[in-house]
């Protein structure tokens, strides 16, 4: 990939809404991405390989559970800092951001919120430092948008739980040391279990041939009579609300992350439009190209405001699941539209790995699908405003 010349757009001086510490955290993540991600990411995406060597660096910039309290190895930062870190990482690549989101919101968050003190002490500091990596198993082959139908289940065998079933499309699964697995007990209630690599009957085959999130490892979780110690059940919350609480946290991070991908596409297209000459002029001087750029920066600015406001609401513990859903849907859709327009602006160059746009565009096809598809989020807002359920 050519040199990373990224300059972040801030059309409405939204930096004024951030604290000095927010900016310090964001700028550190931004510099780190420039130094550690941009030079290697194209190669890893082409090879369809997760760059394992960056885990330590991700931990150092606070990408793993930045809002987890310091006593558990986190940084005790607020929600806006978390969002900004996700934005910067996804500016580099959605796949790397996915790894950080999963670790923070889908693994550390449930242990912190639904786990007991022993579980927190045992896992959180090591997850924060990247010594342990985790994954989150909710989706199943036959239950994607409708996770409440899941068939993965466990039976109380006195000394342990016996877990059976399979999960699909699980980010980080191929290398994760632990998995937060959502499964039904004998009465059909959903609980979270911490399953560790090495437990007998637990395997994690990798999913190959993806055209999206190629630098992120995706796999299955297969449980064939796995004996899970009883102390590995997350005791403080059960029911579908438990995994959905994790999704709220992750979707919030994605709402910020998508802005990062969009900013990178816009910035690339803007620079290219001033340098590329056709018909004796920079292509940026043509109205049709300006329309694209004008719409991009407008949509980015709106998305930034949405994310910032949602961050304030989350800091005040007032953000509803429906509000988070709206931001995830809007911002990912915005990023995808921008990626497609930006790709066209680069002409043939837009399809090469010389520029990041096509990679972002393909990545965003996963981002618009996971953590609730675009359509499912429309139904969430629809239900919220009408009170009428259109899911079934």
């Amino acid at each position, binding site marked *: 990939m050519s040199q990373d010349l990224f300059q972040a757009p801030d059309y409405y001086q939204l930096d004024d809404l951030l604290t*000095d510490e927010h900016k*310090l955290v964001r700028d*550190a993540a931004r510099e*780190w991405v420039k*130094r550690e991600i941009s030079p290697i990411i194209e190669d890893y995406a082409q090879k369809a390989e997760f760059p394992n060597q960056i885990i330590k660096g991700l931990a150092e*910039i606070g990408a793993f559970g930045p809002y987890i309290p*310091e006593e558990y190895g986190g*940084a005790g930062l607020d929600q806006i800092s978390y969002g900004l870190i996700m934005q910067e990482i996804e500016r580099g690549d959605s796949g790397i951001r996915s790894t950080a989101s999963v670790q923070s919101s889908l693994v550390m968050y449930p242990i912190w919120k639904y786990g007991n003190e022993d579980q927190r002490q045992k896992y959180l500091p090591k997850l924060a430092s990247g010594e342990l990596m985790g994954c989150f198993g909710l989706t199943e082959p036959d239950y994607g948008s409708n996770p409440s139908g899941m068939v993965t289940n466990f039976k109380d065998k006195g000394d342990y739980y016996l877990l059976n079933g399979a999960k699909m499309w699980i980010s980080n699964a191929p290398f994760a040391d632990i998995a937060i697995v959502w499964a039904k007990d004998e009465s059909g209630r959903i609980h979270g279990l911490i399953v560790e690599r090495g437990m007998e009957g637990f395997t994690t085959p990798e999913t190959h041939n993806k055209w999206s999130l190629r630098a992120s490892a995706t796999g299955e979780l297969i449980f064939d009579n796995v004996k899970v110690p009883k102390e590995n059940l997350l005791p403080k919350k059960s029911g579908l609300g438990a995994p959905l609480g994790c999704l709220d946290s992750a979707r919030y991070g994605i709402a910020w992350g998508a802005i990062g991908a969009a900013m990178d596409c816009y910035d690339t297209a803007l620079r290219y439009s001033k340098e590329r000459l056709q018909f004796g002029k920079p292509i940026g001087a043509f109205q049709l190209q300006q329309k694209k750029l004008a719409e991009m920066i407008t949509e980015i600015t709106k998305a930034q405001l949405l994310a910032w406001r949602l961050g304030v609401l989350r800091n005040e513990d007032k953000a509803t699941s429906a509000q988070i859903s709206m931001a995830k849907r809007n911002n990912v859709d915005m990023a995808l539209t921008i990626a497609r327009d930006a790709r066209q602006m680069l002409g043939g160059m837009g399809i090469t790995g010389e520029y990041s746009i096509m990679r972002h565009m393909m990545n965003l096809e996963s981002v618009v699908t996971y953590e609730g598809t675009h359509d499912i989020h429309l139904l969430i807002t629809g239900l919220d405003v009408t009170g009428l359920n259109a899911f079934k």
Partner: protein
Amino acid sequence: MKILVCISHVPDTTSKINFTDENSKFDTNGVQFVINPYDEFVLTRAMWFKEKQGASVTVVNVGNATNEPTLRKALAIGADEAIRVNADATDGYFVAKQLAEVVKNGDFDLILAGRESIDYNGGMVPGMLAGILDFNFVNACIGLEVDGNTATVIREIDGGKETLNTNLPLVIGGQKGIVEEKDLRIPNMRGIMMARKKPLSVVEPVSFDATTQSIKFEKPEAKGAVKLIDANNVGELINLLHNEAKVI
């Protein structure tokens, strides 16, 4: 060893430059500020002395409260404490005078500054500071070792390098080479968290009237169009240089 690193707070190199107040002041609206890159090289070297030789590192800036994030970043990178002299940095001599007071009060052995700041590129502060304090001074420094009271310093000279031995107390005007770009540090989360608790003290300036005043800033003229003249047509070239460009 007590090290003082002088940190200047400058616009990022990609900033759009504009002026206000009838072109007498830099317009900071929407501008991102960073640690002066030359200062970042010497700060990184100071971290090395801290880690390898147990030096203490204080960072100082002459400027108003809006400069504090830059000092906070230096603390996050690893400096032990920060001092801000609460005054507008009007010119190089004024800044050097204020820094000299900080050095005297803090009893520093080694003062590291960047060779120049990339905002006004005056390049005067380190030399003036050494002059006021009557300390040894090496400018354009690209290598620095300290052993007890003696320093071995490499500086860039026209077409080469010069290696010198000198004594502390010493003022250095440093640049790339004292460390390399790859050595520059990005603050990590631990550092940012620790920086919250490190002291950042604000001291009032010594009274001293600035001796210069900025009257007006002008931007360089935009590059004009290029005229290409055929190599066989020297007459036309001379004609244009004489009558149009009026340079010969």
